[in-house]
């Protein structure tokens, strides 16, 4: 996934948003990866990094705060982590895996 360096976009998703994953999605974790199943029977597979972010998307933390926590935990540059988390959130939203806001 390519990091997207943008602040404030037409889709309304930025660092101040606190995305929440859709609770009704069927999901299973295996070997650190997540497989999701929606109502239409479409499958989605999240790799290990995306799984870590997915677990955090419960609506309680903004993307900015998630980026700080994750950069501390994995000793990565916070701006890079923020870009990656924002890009992932956009992708998940596009796929309909996040609750609308």
């Amino acid at each position, binding site marked *: 996934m390519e990091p997207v360096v943008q602040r404030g976009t037409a889709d309304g998703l930025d660092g101040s948003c606190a995305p929440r994953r859709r609770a009704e999605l069927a999901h*299973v974790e295996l070997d650190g990866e997540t497989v999701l*199943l929606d109502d239409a*029977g479409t499958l989605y597979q999240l790799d290990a990094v995306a799984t870590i972010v997915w677990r955090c998307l419960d609506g309680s933390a903004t993307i900015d705060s998630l980026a700080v926590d994750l950069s501390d935990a994995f000793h990565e540059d916070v701006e890079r982590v923020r870009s990656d988390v924002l890009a992932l959130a956009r992708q998940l939203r596009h796929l309909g895996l996040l609750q609308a806001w």
Partner: protein
Amino acid sequence: MTSTPLIGTEDIAEQLEAIPWAHRTPRLHALDHRFAVRTTDAGLGRYLDLLLGSLASSERPAVVYSILELEDRAEARYAFYADGTQIALCTTPGECLSWLLWHVNRAAASLPGASVRLHAAAAERDGAAILIPGPSGAGKTTLVARLLQSGLRYLADEVVAVESTSLVVLPYPKPLSVESGAFRSLGDVDGVEPASDTFRDPATPPDSVWLRPLAVGCPSPAALVVAPGYRPGSRTEVEPVRSADALVLLAESSFDLPARGESGLRILAAMAERVPCYRLIFGDLDAAVDMVIELLDRSTRSDEAG
């Protein structure tokens, strides 16, 4: 023979009951689908007994299929019914047979039950089941037929049922249909027997053959998953599949996962975690079978070692 009073009229089921059928099969079952077949064509009836004998059941049928010869239709010679509902008008008995097996397969794949249903073939050896999932054309039927010739016992082709809690693979030993190119590659047929092509469906490839399994396996725990990919001229290559990828592979082969939702996903996840899974690319059938048997040996040795 009869005229065609039944199309578009009411009380079709009652009229079908009044017909003097030349042949009625024994009770049959395809997983949870209990059925029987009756026909006015005695020769077709005997052929159905030969072809479907491995599906014998002791339970009362939920559906009775009727294959009725017609005398006054310009194009169609047979009418095919499921209970009182006309499914198709056919020009040959082989075409009726294809419709019958399609309807039975669809019911076997979709009836709700305690087991998950996969688009796969399966065979068994010494109480260990091999699942062979994959889309049409991947080589499932040819591979399972060759495994039967190698001494394994037949469990299923097209629809595999796996019990939800035990991961035991249940038998659905329907006849196999292979094209003659694949059939020739099977060599001497020991584990399967070619049924007559008298009742071949003209809509199928002209050289397709029905094979009747001779040795049917018993319900057995899944011990190995092999996802085949036939590529003419290719070397035989096998690659282990990680659990998450194996789950996706199984889920993509599932007939009823959307209906089952998370519970179905968890059943397949349990299988992906517990059962070794491989992708197999092959161009030579004998080499592919040797590889599958070696993988099964490894899997059962690993189980025995605890």
